[in-house]
Every structure is written in structure tokens, then in C-alpha cells.
């Protein structure tokens, strides 16, 4: 399996920049996810790799082979589309065999390989079915078989689970994971769903406004996000904004209006004295105590029952929302005065990403 590399890849549509110059290496056999909100450029990046769009500048390499100027049919890339893009006029077998026929393989070879591919996605015996007879999940698996059967150098998956309902999404997720373990294709997966990214990826690249904000393993991104956008996009986060008053060794001191206390946390990249920054504390580190325990005073505003746990939203005097989870029976009712605290070392002070209009919780 060769690797896939983008070298200063840049795409403009007229005056708008879809992808800012981006350099990224997907290692041989690696499963990399491009995660970001819609319009962040992740699908454009994928279309550039597949050859459906030509870059404004920059190069694309598969292994040592420069494919930038090759048409899609010569790139040997397997692609799965969100809307399946199965050929409605062909049956399941012919859909899977399509790439082999285009390569002028021998009939016996086609029959053997297409059947094997259908077996790999657990659709033996479905060859003669019409596409219209299949369920959404089955269609997506046919699309996977069709992409895998040509033994592609690189596999590109463009939000392949977007059109499926939640239950099915789980199943196909595990299916994709199993197939990746089995065949080990160099894979780029595009999604806006953080759960999919966490389940499937070796590494995740978080994209925003046409550029990659941060690339790393799920742990790296979760524990040391580079800015508030990354912190907000992967995992739940509590962010308390303020101004950096001092940085002593690696610890930043954050002044927050109307809070009555300074906050401390490990300083992240780009944090400077006098600049806006935010303290990140993940919900699992939040402590809620009643009475006079040490911590910041706050009020419970909402308790959301989620089955095994309850999500509790409380508010600090500064106005910042603090979310945490508690076993369902141990939740505190709305209106309770609480003292909010966290373990030393749990906080991180992050640069505030400019214009975080799309950062979801």
C-alpha cells in the first residue's frame, strides 16, 4: 500500500478559497479522517485527491507517483460517495464488476474477484439483485465492494454514512473498520461526525475554513487541542474565556471578568500575555459540590436525563456554562447552589480560534 501526500495543495473557485495551501501525509495503510463542519473544505480536498477537481496549485502524490495531472481513471483510487452513486441500470454484481470490466479483466477473473468482494462485505448471493431492491446499508456495502475490488492504492470515503440512520451507521462503521483491518488500504475518510472519527481513525485532521487546524491521534487532539475550535469540535468541552495576565513557566494565569478568582492552566500554543484565551476543562474532570467546598460558586440550570447518566449544566457568576455528567440517580436538581471545581492539571489555556461561528458543543 503506497502513501498519499498533499504538497501545498491549494484550490480557489474564482475569488473564494476552498482549500488553503495544505500539506498532509497519509502514511501507507493509515486510516485518516478529515473532520470538520460543512464548508470547511474537507470534501474539496477529497475531490482534489480523486481528480474530480484540478488544484489551483500544489501536488498530489500516491507513493512516489505524482498523480496531480492524471485523470481520475488513471489514479487507481477507490471512492465511496455519500449518495452511494451506484449504477441504477446495473445489478449488484455488475456494479461491483464495473471497474474490472473497465480494466478489461478476463471473464473468469471478474466473476471470481467480484464474488470475493461481495463476500467480503457479507453480500454473498446478492449479485443478481437490482440496486433498487437493496436497503440503504446494503447499498453502501455494495459501494464499498465496488471500490475495493479494483485493489485501489488509496481508498477515499466521502461521508459514506451520512445518509444512513443511527442504528445502521453503527453497523457500517464497524464494517468499515473490519475491512480496513483486513485489507489495510491507505484511507481518507471525510465526516462531520466526531463519533465516526473516533471509532475509525488512526489519525484525525480537523479542518476549518479551508485549512487543517490540527492533525493527530484522537488522544492528542482530545488532550492537547491547539485552540478552542479543535477543543470544541472533538469531544465535549467547557471553555471559560478571559485575558492572559501572566505566564509562569508553562502555566498561564487567566483573568475572567465577574468571576472573582484567577484561573490557571497549562499554556497551549499561541497563548500570550495580554491576549484573549480560554481555559478548557473537559466535563469528566468537573467536580460539583454542595455547600462550602472549595471552588467557584455556580448554579445548576438544567439536568438532562440520558439513561445511564445525566448531563448537568451549571453557570458560573461570569456567565460561562459548565457541563458535566453524573450517574443518573446522583444528579442535582436545577436551582441548586454548587461549588464547581476541578483537579489541578485538568485545565488547559488555549488560544481562541478567530471566528468560532461554527464550533458546536
Amino acid at each position, binding site marked *: 500500500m503506497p502513501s498519499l501526500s498533499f504538497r501545498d495543495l491549494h484550490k480557489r473557485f474564482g475569488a473564494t478559497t476552498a482549500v488553503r495551501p495544505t500539506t498532509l501525509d497519509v502514511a501507507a495503510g493509515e486510516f485518516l479522517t478529515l473532520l470538520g463542519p460543512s464548508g470547511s473544505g474537507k470534501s474539496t480536498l477529497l475531490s482534489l485527491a*480523486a*481528480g*474530480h477537481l484540478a488544484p489551483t496549485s500544489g501536488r498530489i502524490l500516491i507513493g512516489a507517483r505524482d498523480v496531480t495531472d492524471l*485523470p*481520475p*481513471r*488513471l*489514479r*487507481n*483510487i*477507490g*471512492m465511496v*460517495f455519500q*449518495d452511494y*452513486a*451506484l*449504477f*441504477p*441500470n*446495473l445489478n449488484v454484481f455488475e456494479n461491483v464488476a*464495473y*471497474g474490472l470490466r*473497465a*480494466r478489461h479483466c478476463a471473464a473468469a477473473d471478474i466473476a471470481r474477484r467480484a464474488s470475493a468482494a461481495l463476500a467480503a462485505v457479507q453480500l454473498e448471493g446478492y449479485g443478481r439483485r437490482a440496486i*433498487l*431492491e*437493496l*436497503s*440503504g446499508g446494503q447499498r453502501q456495502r455494495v459501494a464499498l465492494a*465496488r471500490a475495493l475490488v*479494483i485493489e485501489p492504492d488509496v481508498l477515499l470515503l466521502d461521508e459514506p454514512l451520512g445518509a444512513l440512520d443511527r442504528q445502521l451507521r453503527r453497523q457500517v462503521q464497524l464494517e468499515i473498520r473490519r475491512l480496513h483491518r483486513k485489507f489495510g488500504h491507505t484511507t481518507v475518510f471525510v465526516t462531520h461526525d466526531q463519533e465516526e472519527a473516533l471509532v475509525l481513525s488512526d489519525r484525525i485532521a480537523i479542518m476549518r475554513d479551508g485549512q487543517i487546524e490540527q492533525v493527530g491521534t484522537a488522544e492528542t487532539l482530545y488532550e492537547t487541542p491547539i485552540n478552542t475550535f479543535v477543543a470544541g469540535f472533538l469531544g465535549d468541552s467547557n471553555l471559560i474565556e478571559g485575558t492572559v495576565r501572566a505566564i509562569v513557566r508553562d502555566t498561564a494565569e487567566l483573568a475572567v471578568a465577574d468571576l472573582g478568582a484567577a484561573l490557571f492552566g497549562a499554556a497551549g500554543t499561541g497563548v500570550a500575555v495580554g491576549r484573549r484565551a480560554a481555559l478548557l476543562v473537559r466535563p469528566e474532570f468537573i467536580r460539583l459540590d454542595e455547600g462550602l467546598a472549595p471552588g467557584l460558586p455556580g448554579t445548576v440550570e438544567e439536568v438532562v436525563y440520558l439513561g445511564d447518566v445525566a448531563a448537568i449544566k451549571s453557570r458560573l457568576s461570569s456567565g460561562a456554562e459548565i457541563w458535566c455528567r453524573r450517574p443518573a440517580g446522583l444528579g442535582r436538581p436545577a436551582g441548586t447552589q454548587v461549588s464547581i471545581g476541578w483537579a489541578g492539571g485538568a485545565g488547559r489555556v488555549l488560544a481562541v480560534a478567530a471566528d468560532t461561528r461554527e464550533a458546536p458543543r
Partner: protein
Amino acid sequence: MHAVVSLVLAFLVLPTLVVVPASLNHASFIQIPPTMLSGRWYREFFADPEWLASLGSSLKVAALATSLSLVLGTTAALGLERLHGAWRTLLSGLFLAPLVVPAIVLAVALYYVARPLGLAGTTAGLALGHTLMCLPYVIVNVGVSLRTLDASLERAAAGLGASPWRIFRTVTLPCIAPGLAGGAVFAAITSFDELIISIFLAGVRTQTLPVKLWETIRVEFTPVVAVAASVIIAVSLFGFAVQRLRSRRIFRTRAEANAVA
């Protein structure tokens, strides 16, 4: 309300259908309502080599014009689909012009072009003239089905290693087949009952059925004319029925597809 609708329908349809009972009358002159039913004039029509030759000529010209306009119209629709902005507006306007330009103007113009080229009076000349009239129907029908064609299908095929020609053959063409069929039916009907251009371009041996009908009725008012008119109605209705049935079938498969998805 129902009465008004019935009156309008009667106004629209009856004058056309009046030729059918007229063609079935036994008398030797056109008479409505018929006094005695008989197939006499149908036998006369199908025994007359001149009428049969004109029917054959019409079918031949319609087949040629339909095939030609299918090929040209499909390529034109594919080309238009890839254009944007002013070019697209201009070119599609030009392609659809035969729908707007008075047929008599086209007929005169074609006559002037066809004569020096030796095409006047030939089947080829007629077929070419009819193609001009048929093209818009093919372009519109194919254009509509191209717009509903999912662009990711062609991308998927390209990604799987298919050449542009293979993509057209195995993906584009099957997906626009309903549009082609619709365009073909409209083109065939248009050519089959076209009169004005045919009057100018038809020769003695290439006289189409409408032209033969037109010339006969100017000389004598025989019930065979009513038979010829009924034949034209029958062929047109048949084409229309084929088209309706096809589109209903396609509609059903689409509905089933949506039910599954």
C-alpha cells in the same frame, strides 16, 4: 362546471374525430353522420398503390428524421449541458428556433437551399427538413433527463477506470434512455404529420401521406381522404400511447425506488 369542461373537450376533440365515422361510411361522398357502416374505403385505400406509396414514404422519412434528430439532438443536449451563461442561452435559443419560426418561412428557405443541392424532391431532402423540425423535441426531452442525471454516477465510473466513451455508453446513455424515448416519439409524430415543409420539398415519388392527402382533397372530396386522415390519427395516437405507457412505467419504478430508500 362539468358541462363547461365537456363543451371545451368536445370543441377540442370532435372536429378531429369526425373523420373517423366519415371514413367508415358506405356512400361515395363524405357524409356525417354515416348512413351505413362499411370498410369499403379502407379497402380502397390499402389497395391503391399511390396511397400505399405515400404511407411508405411518410414512414421512411419519419424513421430517417427521427434517427437523425436523435443523434444530433442528444449530442446537442450533452453539449448544452456543459455550457454556462450567455453561450448556453444563445445556442439553446438557436436550437429551439424551429418551434417559433413560422413553418412556411422555414419551408421557403429550405426549398431555396435544397434545390441547388439537388435535395428537393428526394427522401434525403425531406428527412433533413423534418430533422430540423424534430430536433427541438429531442433536445428538450434529453436535456430534462440529463438534468436529473446524478453527476456522481459519472464521477464514480471515471474513478473506477472507465474511459469517457465507456462512461457514456454504460452510465449516461442508460440513464437518459427515457428522455431519448420521449424525444423519439415526439420527433416521429412531428415528422409523420408534417405538411408545410413537405409540400415544398416532396417530389412526385417522395410524396408523403399528408401531402398526398392535401393534393387529393383539392381535386376530389372522396371518403378515402377521411381514411388517410384516420390513419394519421391512429399512428399519432399509437406513438402517444407508447410514450405515456413508458413514462408511467418509469414513474412507477422511481416511486418504488423512493419507497425503498
